[in-house]
C-alpha cells in the first residue's frame, strides 16, 4: 500500500467540505431538449468479425453465436424506449466481417448497407486498428466491445476508437487489489501458451509489481493430455513443484485447461485469475444495484445468461443513447465529445456511474470479483484511493499511459 499515485488524498475534496453545486446550465439544456419536438434518426452499426476459436478441452460452455449482439439488441431496445419520449428513433444494423475485413450486412433488410458513423466493433486488436486507421473511417466513432489488449489504451490508442470492454490491466488490478486486501501476498502462477494467456499473465505481473506482491514461481501449461480423464493424476504432479504459497493464479483466457485445476492441486490452495476467483466486468452472479433487472431482461430476450461481451455491447449502445438523449445529436463528433466530457455519466447496474477516461477513451467501470455462484468483492476495493476517481485505480492511469492521440481533443 505504498503507491503514492493512488494515495494523493483528494485534498481539494476535503476543503470543499459541504458543497452544493447548482448545475442549472445542464438542467436547462435537458429541459430544452425534453421539450424539443424535432425528430432525430440515430443509426448504429454493430460489426462482428468471425474469428476461428482455438479448440478447448471441454465441450461445456460453448460460446453462444449471438454473444455481444444480444447485448447490443437489449441496449438498442432500451434506447428505443427512451427515444420514444424525445422524438428520437434508433436503428441498429448488424454487419459480419470476414477474416479479410470485408463487411456485409448480416440481414438482407438491414437499415444500412454499409456501417454508419456510430460503430460498435467486436473484433481482435489488429482488425480494430486497421478499421480505425482506414481513411474512410476517420470521422467515425468506433467503440470496442471485446478486445482487452492493454496496448489499445496505451501507445496503440486511436482518437476515433473508444473502449467499453475492460483491459487486461483493469482486470488484473482488480484481482491484485483483492489479494492486497486479504494479505494473500505469496503467489504462484500457471500460464497457458496462447497469446491471450500471455497478455493476461503479463498484465497480472505488472499489477503485482505495482502493488508489491510476489509471484515466487511461474509454470507454463504445455501438456496436451486430455484433462477430462487425467486431471486427478496430472495436475497434482504438475503443481507439486510450487513451494508454499497463498493463492495459485492461472492465466487461461481461452477457457482451455484452468477449469480442471480446482481440487486437483498438490497443496489445497484457492485459485484465481481465469478460473476460481475471476475478475470480470459481468457475470450471472452480479445481482446488486438493480443488476437483477438487467439480468432478467437479458435472459428473457436472449434465452441465456448475459456474458461480459454482451454487457460491454449493452453499455456501449446505452452510452451512445445517453449521449444522444443529452445532446439531441447523432453525429460522431458531437457524440464522441459529449462521451469524453465531464457531463457524461451512465447508470450501468454496477453501483457506480460509468464514464470515459478523456485521455485514452477507456470506459471506467467496476470490476466484479466473482466465483460461479456469488460476487466475492467489487473493485475498486475500499482503501484504494485516487485523486480523480477510485475507478481510475483500475488499469492504466493517465501518467502511466503512452496514449497521445487524445491530447489535442
Amino acid at each position, binding site marked *: 500500500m505504498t503507491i503514492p499515485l493512488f494515495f494523493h488524498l483528494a485534498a481539494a*475534496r*476535503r476543503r*470543499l*467540505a*459541504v*458543497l*452544493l*453545486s*447548482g*448545475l*442549472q446550465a*445542464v*438542467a*436547462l439544456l*435537458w*429541459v430544452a*431538449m*425534453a421539450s424539443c419536438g424535432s425528430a432525430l434518426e440515430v443509426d448504429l452499426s454493430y460489426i462482428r468479425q468471425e474469428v476461428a476459436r482455438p479448440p478447448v478441452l471441454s465441450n461445456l460452455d460453448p460460446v453462444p453465436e449471438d454473444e455481444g449482439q444480444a447485448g447490443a439488441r437489449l441496449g438498442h431496445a*432500451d434506447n428505443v*424506449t*427512451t427515444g420514444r*419520449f*424525445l422524438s428520437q428513433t434508433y436503428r441498429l444494423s448488424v454487419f459480419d466481417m470476414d477474416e479479410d475485413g470485408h463487411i456485409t450486412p448480416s440481414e438482407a433488410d438491414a437499415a444500412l448497407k454499409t456501417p454508419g458513423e456510430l460503430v460498435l466493433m467486436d473484433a481482435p486488436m489488429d482488425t480494430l486498428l486497421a478499421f480505425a486507421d482506414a481513411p474512410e473511417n476517420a470521422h467515425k466513432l468506433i467503440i470496442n466491445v471485446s478486445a482487452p489488449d492493454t496496448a489499445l489504451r496505451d501507445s496503440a490508442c486511436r482518437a476515433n476508437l473508444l473502449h467499453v470492454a475492460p483491459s487486461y490491466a483493469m482486470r488484473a488490478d482488480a484481482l491484485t487489489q483483492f489479494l492486497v486486501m486479504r494479505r494473500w501476498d505469496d503467489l504462484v502462477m500457471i500460464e497457458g501458451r496462447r497469446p491471450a494467456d500471455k497478455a493476461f499473465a503479463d498484465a497480472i505481473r505488472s499489477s503485482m509489481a505495482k502493488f508489491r506482491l510476489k509471484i515466487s514461481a511461474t509454470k507454463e501449461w504445455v501438456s496436451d493430455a486430455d484433462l477430462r480423464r487425467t486431471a486427478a493424476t496430472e495436475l497434482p504432479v504438475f503443481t507439486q513443484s510450487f513451494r508454499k504459497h497463498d493463492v495459485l493464479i492461472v492465466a487461461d483466457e481461452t477457457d482451455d485447461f484452468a477449469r480442471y485445476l480446482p481440487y486437483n492441486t498438490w497443496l489445497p490452495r484457492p485459485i484465481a485469475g481465469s478460473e476460481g476467483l475471476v475478475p470480470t466486468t459481468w457475470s450471472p452472479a452480479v445481482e446488486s444495484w*438493480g443488476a437483477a*433487472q438487467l439480468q*432478467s*431482461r437479458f435472459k428473457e430476450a436472449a434465452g441465456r445468461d448475459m456474458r461480459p461481451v454482451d454487457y460491454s455491447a449493452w453499455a456501449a449502445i*446505452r452510452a451512445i443513447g*445517453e449521449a444522444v*438523449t*443529452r445532446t439531441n445529436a447523432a453525429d460522431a463528433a458531437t457524440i464522441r465529445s459529449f462521451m469524453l466530457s465531464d457531463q457524461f*455519466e*451512465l*447508470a450501468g447496474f454496477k*453501483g*457506480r*456511474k460509468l464514464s470515459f477516461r478523456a485521455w485514452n477513451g477507456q470506459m471506467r467501470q467496476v470490476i466484479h470479483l466473482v466465483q460461479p455462484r456469488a460476487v466475492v468483492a467489487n473493485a475498486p476495493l475500499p482503501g484504494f484511493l485516487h485523486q480523480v*476517481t*477510485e*475507478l481510475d485505480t483500475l488499469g492504466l492511469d493517465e501518467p502511466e499511459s503512452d496514449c497521445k492521440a487524445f491530447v489535442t481533443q
Partner: protein
Amino acid sequence: MRHWIRAQNVRRAALAGACILATGVATAGEMWISNEKDHTVSVIDTQTLEVKATYNVGLRPRGITFAKDYSVLYICASDDDTVEVLDPDTGVVLRRLPSGEDPEQFALHPDNTHLYIANEEDALATVLDVQSGEAIAEIDVGIEPEGMAVSPDGTIAVVTSETTNMVHWIDTKEQHIFHNTLVAQRPRHAEFSDKGDRLWVSSEIGGTIAVIDTATQEVLHEMRVQIPGISDDLVQPVGIRLSSDGTKAFVALGPSNHVAVIDQQTFEVLDFVLVGRRVWHLEFSEDDKQIYSTNGVSGDVTVIDVETLKPIKTIKVGRFPWGAAFRPG
C-alpha cells in the same frame, strides 16, 4: 334510527378528541417497515421504539403505504406480482390485488381509491382501483419505472424511470402522459412538496437531487451533495421526505450511510446524519417530530430526532428493510 347513529358517531368522535386532549400525547403510533429479503413487515411502536409485531406477507415486499384512513396497508409484493391489502390491526392479508408484473413502488391518489403502481420489469404504470380490484389503466413509461407520487390535489401522477432517466407526468383524469422531464442517471424517488408546487426527484447514480416546478415541469434547481471523506460516487440519493412545514428535506444517500438534511427553500445542506448501511427510504412519525430511515444492508432502522438532527436509536428489523409507512395511534 338514523339520528341515533349520527349521535353515536358524534359522541365517539368527541370522546376520541377528549382522550387526546386529556393525555396530551396520542396513543403510540406505529412505523411499518417492509423487509425485502424476509418477506415480512415489522411494526415498530413509535413510543417505546421496539418492534412489537412482525407479520409474514408476500414475496419481496418493497413499497408500502396506508389507506388515507389507515384502515388497511397496501404492500407491493414484487415477486408475487401483486399488491396485498393487509389489516393493520390483525396483520392478516385480506385481499390480493392485480398490480401488473413486479410492482416496486406505488402512490395512493387522494381519492383513496386509485393506486398508481410502477411495474419495474414491464416499463408500465398501472392504475388500480382498490375498491373494485380492477386495473383501470396501463400507461407505457420508460425502462424500469420506480418512483411514484401523486400531487396533493390529485391532478398529476409522476413516475420516474431508472434507465430512461425521466420523470413522466401523468394527467390523472385522462391517464396519459402529458410531459417528460429528463433528469440525471437512475431517478429513484419522487416527492411532492406539501403545497404541491414542487417535485423533488433523486437520481441515485447521477448523485443529484432535482427540484422541479410542478406548473412548468422544468428543473428549478439541481444539487449535488458532497460528504467530506466519502467518495462522490458513493453519495447516491434515494428516498426523500419533505417536512410539512416547508422547512426541511431529508434525503437518504444509499451506500454513503448518511441522510442529508437540506433546507427546502434555500437548498442549503443543513447537516448529515450517520445511519445504518445502504439507507433506502424515510418516513416521518407523529407531527414530523422524528424520521425513520430503512438501512438495507445492516438490516435496521434508524430513528432521527427532526429538531436536533441526532440519531436517537437503531432498531433491528428483518433482512433488507426497504419501505416505511406511518400509522398514528
